[in-house]
C-alpha cells in the first residue's frame, strides 16, 4: 500500500451501512481522481464482508474488514484502537468518514493516537496544489471556514451527512479486493459495555431524511403534532421540531432541529408554525428547499423559504396531506 491511499470509514449499525457512508465514499472517489490516489473502504463490525462488497460496488478499489465479537456494538475503544493501529502500520494519506454521532467519536479518538486532530463536518472538499482544503460551517453555520492539515499525516476528515451526493452503484472493478484483519483489543480489556438499545422501530432518522416536516410553537400542544406527523408520513419523511416545542414537552428532544438540537440538510424542509429564530435556522438553513407555513407573514422563517403559505397550519396541513396522498397514490 502506498502513501497515496485514501481511506473511507464506512459507518454501519447492526449490519446495515448508513447512507452517509456512501456519500462519503463518493466524495473520496472524486478526491482520489484529483490526487491520483486509491480509495480503500474500512468496514468494522457485524456483516462487514457484505458491506465491504457494497463499498466495492460504490467505487472503492479495496476494502479492509474486521468482524469480531468486540465490534458487534459500537464503542469508541475497540473501534478507535483498531483504526489507529491500521493507520500507524499503513500510513494512509487521509481518513475520511461520515460525521454521524458514532464516527465523530471514533475519528476524534483515532486522530489523537495519530498525533493530530479532525477537520470535522466538512461540506466542501477541494484540492489546491497538492493540499486538501476542507470547508466547514462554524458558529452554527453563520460562517464558513476553510481549514487544512498542517504537517501531520494522515488527514482525518468527517463529512456532514447529505452535503455530498450519493454515488451510483457500478459493477465493482475489484470485486475480490477484500482483506480481513484482526481486532486489536480483547473484551476483557474493555471498560465500556453496551447493555441495550432503546429505539423506535421504523422511524426515519432526522440526519438521513430527505424530507423533514417540523412543528414549532404554533402547533399549540402535543396533539397539534398529529397533522405534522401525518404529513411527514405521507411524504415518507421524518418529523422535526423547534426548541420551543421540545421545551414545552410536546415532543421528545430527539426531534429537535437547531443549534442545541440536530443539524439537518434535507431536500425538503417544511416548517410549520415555526417563527425561525436564528438558533433554529442554524440547524436547517442548508436544506435544499424550505417551505414555511405560518400565520404570521412577518415571521423570519419566510426570509429563508422558497415557498410560503400564510395561514392556519391546522387547515393547511391536513389539506396538503390529503392532496399529496391522492397525487402519490398513498
Amino acid at each position, binding site marked *: 500500500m502506498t502513501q497515496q491511499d485514501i481511506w473511507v470509514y464506512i459507518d454501519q449499525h447492526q449490519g446495515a451501512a448508513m447512507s452517509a457512508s456512501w456519500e462519503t465514499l463518493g466524495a473520496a472517489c472524486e478526491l482520489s481522481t484529483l490526487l491520483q490516489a486509491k480509495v480503500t473502504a474500512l468496514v468494522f463490525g457485524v456483516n462487514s464482508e457484505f458491506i465491504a462488497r457494497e463499498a466495492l460496488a460504490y467505487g472503492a478499489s479495496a476494502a479492509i474488514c474486521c468482524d469480531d465479537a468486540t465490534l458487534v456494538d459500537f464503542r469508541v475503544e475497540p473501534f478507535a484502537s483498531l483504526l489507529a493501529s491500521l493507520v500507524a502500520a499503513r500510513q494512509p494519506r487521509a481518513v475520511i468518514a461520515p460525521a454521524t454521532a458514532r464516527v465523530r467519536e471514533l475519528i476524534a479518538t483515532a486522530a489523537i493516537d495519530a498525533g493530530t486532530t479532525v477537520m*470535522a463536518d466538512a461540506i466542501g472538499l477541494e484540492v489546491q496544489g497538492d493540499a486538501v482544503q476542507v470547508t466547514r460551517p462554524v458558529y452554527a453555520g453563520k460562517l464558513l471556514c476553510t481549514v487544512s492539515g498542517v504537517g501531520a499525516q494522515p488527514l482525518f476528515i468527517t463529512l456532514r451527512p447529505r452535503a455530498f451526493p450519493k454515488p451510483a452503484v457500478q459493477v465493482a472493478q475489484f470485486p475480490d479486493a477484500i482483506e480481513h484483519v484482526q481486532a486489536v483489543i480483547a473484551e476483557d480489556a474493555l471498560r465500556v459495555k453496551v447493555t441495550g438499545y432503546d429505539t423506535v422501530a421504523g422511524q426515519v432518522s432526522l440526519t438521513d431524511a430527505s424530507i423533514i416536516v417540523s412543528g414549532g410553537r404554533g402547533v399549540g400542544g402535543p396533539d397539534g403534532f398529529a397533522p405534522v406527523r401525518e404529513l411527514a408520513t405521507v411524504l415518507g419523511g421524518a418529523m422535526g421540531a423547534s426548541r420551543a416545542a421540545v421545551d414545552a414537552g410536546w415532543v421528545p428532544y430527539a426531534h429537535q432541529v437547531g443549534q442545541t438540537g440536530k443539524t439537518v440538510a434535507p431536500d425538503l424542509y417544511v416548517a410549520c408554525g415555526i417563527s425561525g429564530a436564528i438558533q433554529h435556522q442554524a440547524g436547517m438553513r442548508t436544506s435544499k428547499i424550505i417551505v414555511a407555513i405560518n400565520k404570521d407573514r412577518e415571521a423570519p422563517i419566510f426570509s429563508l423559504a422558497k415557498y410560503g403559505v400564510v395561514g392556519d397550519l391546522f387547515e393547511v396541513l391536513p389539506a396538503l396531506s390529503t392532496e399529496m396522498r391522492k397525487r402519490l397514490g398513498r
Partner: protein
Amino acid sequence: MHIVACVKQTPDSAALITVADGRVGWGDAAMVVNPWDEYAIEEAIRLKEKHGGRATAITMGPERARDALKSCIAMGCDGGVLVADAALAGSDARATARVLAAAIQKLGDVDVVIFGKQAIDGDSGIVPLAVARLLGWSPLSYVLQISALDAGARTIEVARLLEEGRQLCSAQLPVVISVVRDINEPRYPTFAGIRRAGTAQIPIWNLGDLGLDELQVGASAVTVAWQAVRAPASRAGAVEILAGDSVAATVSMLADRLQAEKLT
C-alpha cells in the same frame, strides 16, 4: 466523588456573527457560558448533590473567561480553575485537549469529567473525546441520562443519543462524558450563589503549572489550521407566497411546486 465540568466562554447564541478582514466579530454581544456546557455544569452539580464530594469547573481562555467560571460557581460548583497563558492563543482541538487533560491530572482525584456536546463557535465536538484518549479514560458521548452511579463499585450507567435512538452503556470510572441538552434543566444561580461567586478565589494555572511547554500548545502545535473565514452566500431569491382562492387551491399550488421540484 470529584466531578469536573469543562466549560468554554463563547459569544451569545443570538449574536450576529460577522467577518471582516478575515477576523470573526460579534459586535457588542455578551460572552456567555457555551449553552451546551450549562447542561454539563448542572449535571456535575446534581452528581455532587446526590453522591457527595465536590464539583469543580475548568476553563481555558483569556482573563475574561473568569466570568464563565463565576457563572458555574453561582449555579453551585464548589470552585473553578482558569487555565490562561499567552502561549495558548491559536490552540486547536488537540492542544486544547492536552491542556485540559493536564489540568484534570493536576487536580488529581477526579472521577467524572463532564463536557457539553460541543461549543457553539468551533462546533466540532472533538475535545471531550480527545481529553478522554489523552487521559486513557473511557469516553461516553451524547449522554442524555445518567441512570446509575455507584461510587463504591466505581461504575456508571448511561443512555447515549445516537442516530437510531438510545444506546445504553455501563462503564468503569473514571470517565469523560459529553452531554446533550435533554439530560436536565439547568438551574438559575441563587442569590447566595452569586455572592459566593463574587468572592470566590479562582486560581490561574499557566503552562508551567501544568508541566507543558510552549511547543505543545498554541499556534506552534497546530495540526488543523483555519485558513479563511467567510459568510455563507445568502439564500437566493425572495419567498413565493402561495395564496389560492381556498385552502384546497393553495395546497394544490404547493403540491404542484413540490412535484415540479421533484421532491416527492
